[in-house]
């Protein structure tokens, strides 16, 4: 089954590579992997979705925690959580088709963010299911291009990932760090 991990990492060059390399060499299948800044300066958050069993999930969690710049790992598969995916979809739409597509966009509460004589670009966020479904109904009109972020996820309610991400100060940038000065994962 799919397991979703929220992984808090020091925002240093090479961290993404370390995590991706770990998942690859331990022969796990990545369903999706996203990364971005968090509310804490210097800390980034990855959402890693992996297809494995319960034992595999535990092992991967343990392995992730051994990566030095990883500050915290939460398996949020079982906890109530919200997950979202964002997609940009370019659809060929002229004449009548254009009106149909715009109706569908309304139904799905998506937005049109670019219009050209031959095409529309649709922006949508939601669960992966919802986006898959929108994609399905747009396909007959001609999907010319699509890009998706992959899943990001967050536990519901007040269960904040305290300790690592906030408390124990960002290690005063253990300067040895990975590399030079700038850049992010």
């Amino acid at each position, binding site marked *: 089954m799919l397991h979703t991990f929220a992984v808090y990492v020091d925002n240093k060059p090479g961290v993404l590579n370390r995590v991706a390399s770990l998942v690859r060499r331990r022969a796990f299948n990545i369903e999706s992997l996203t990364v971005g800044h968090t509310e804490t300066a210097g800390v980034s958050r990855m959402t890693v979705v992996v297809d494995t069993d319960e034992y595999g999930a535990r092992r991967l969690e*343990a392995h992730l925690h*051994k990566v030095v710049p990883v500050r915290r790992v939460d398996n949020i598969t079982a906890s109530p959580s919200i997950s979202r995916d964002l997609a940009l979809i370019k659809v060929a739409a002229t004449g009548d088709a254009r009106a149909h597509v715009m109706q569908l966009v309304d139904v799905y509460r998506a937005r049109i963010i670019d219009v050209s004589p031959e095409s529309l670009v649709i922006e949508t966020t939601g669960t992966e299911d919802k986006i898959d479904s929108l994609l399905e109904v747009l396909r007959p009109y001609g999907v010319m291009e699509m890009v998706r972020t992959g899943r990001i996820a967050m536990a519901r309610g007040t269960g904040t990932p305290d300790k690592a991400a906030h408390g*124990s100060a960002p290690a005063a940038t*253990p*300067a*040895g760090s990975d590399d030079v*000065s700038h850049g992010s994962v």
Partner: protein
Amino acid sequence: MPLTGAQIIWDSLVRQGVTDVFGYPGGAILPAYDAMLGYPVRHILVRHEQGATHMADGYARASGRVGVAIATSGPGATNMVTGIATAMMDSSPIVCITGQVGSKVIGSDAFQEIDITGITLPITKHNYLVTRAQDIAPAIFEAFAVAKSGRPGPVLVDITKDAQQASCEVDWAAAEPHLVEAYDEALPGDGDYRDAVALINNAERPLILAGHGIMQSGAEREVLQLAERAGIPIAVTLLGIGGIPASHPLNLGMMGMHGEAFVNHAIQQADLLIALGMRFDDRVTGNLKTYALNAKKIHVDIDRAELNKNVRVDVAIAKDLKPALAEWMPHVKSGDRRAWLETIDGLKGDSAVRDIQNLPDNGHLYAAHVINDLWRLTGGDAVVVTDVGQHQMWEAQYYKHDKSRSLITSGGLGTMGFALPAAIGAKVARPDAEVWVVCGDGGFQMTMCELATIVQEGLDVNVAIINNGYLGMVRQWQEFFYEKRYAATPLIGPDFTKLAQAFGIDAVAVSQRSEVAAAVQGARKSRRATVIDFQVEQEDSVFPMVPAGADLHKMILRPSPIVETAAD
């Protein structure tokens, strides 16, 4: 007072308690080498950077301290890869420092530039690319902390030449590492020590499986206490040898592919396995589908990622072994398990009769004879460093190690060429110890250049080459599983005696059993290194053997022909 980056390297190492380093200079590490002369550190000049990493590894395994290896960029760094991987697989704490081209030219394919942090990413616990002098001390301090903490392992610090040349003030207090705390919070589903103790107290046929972790944790005494209090026999892994005295009545000896058959039978018949600091390697379990089906299982390992990896267990505890056992001990009931011990005794069958120690001498020289004699003549007190192959298994079977950290061998990666350099490291770490290399003629030829290191450093390391003219273990597999088609295993070596003498090392060849004792005693008496070329039976095989992937209880036993040959 500002220091150069090069000085900071040595200052940091000295502050970490480093007294010896193994290295090889080159362009990108030259500033560091120049600064070295001002610091109280012994530098052992190796002949190949792979040797430097094995030496650091042997140093670490013999002493429990962190071993340090140094090399230049490019080929110097890539030559370290095998040694780093070896240390990774066997959880050996080493820190490798490499020079790197100037930070301004990184990425330009400069002379001797290689992305060594990229290359070593999967085979280090962590690595660092340092491009500024002020980042050197924090990186080295953190590298030592990472190498030693939790499950130990190798760490690499790659330092650009301009970082070594630049100067800065160092705030040593601020350089102390700020690592995220160890991952010791319990997770849902974690085993509870009370469950472990309940299983132990209720077991009728329990067996302790002891691995490398008992030494890494320093839990030798605790494991023995548990065994003695509850009357539980112990089987050890290859890397667990020495952690429990071989002469202890509860120590059954090595398990697995080349363990004694009765030990493996005991595992298959046990109703409880207590796995301590071991990782159910495939060489230990054989076919997982038929492995210890009658047994409940408790697994304690400091690395949570090892739990439920190969073998599903009933109680999985992610904890340092020593405190874990201390927690159990007050609750473990003393037990009388004589019936179980007698059952195990019964499983031995006629194995003792077939054992080469009990066979009369027929003049032929068997490797097992050599090892057995070496054990006897050294009083079991030597630090023996083995390579990989048949001799490694014979050593494990016939040298009875009573002391912790007295067998050093490449287990997980199985690195041929490990023994000679690792023994040099062990000797540097423990100059008062009697150190013996036991290696095959194949593995010896992989790193024999380090004989020159022995000479230059004036080290008393004795080398026993078990010379059978074959890549013996591969030949054995060809004999058993490939219809004796000996593809690329017959091996012509040099005259090892002359070779050693060319290096300025005493050497002697032995082809009769009657000559073994004199050769070994001669080597022991001399205060210099000695190489002994033991020319043993060429097509001898290691028994018993569980073929790879076969059921653990289906072993190939010592065949009667050997009994007859040796008895005739």
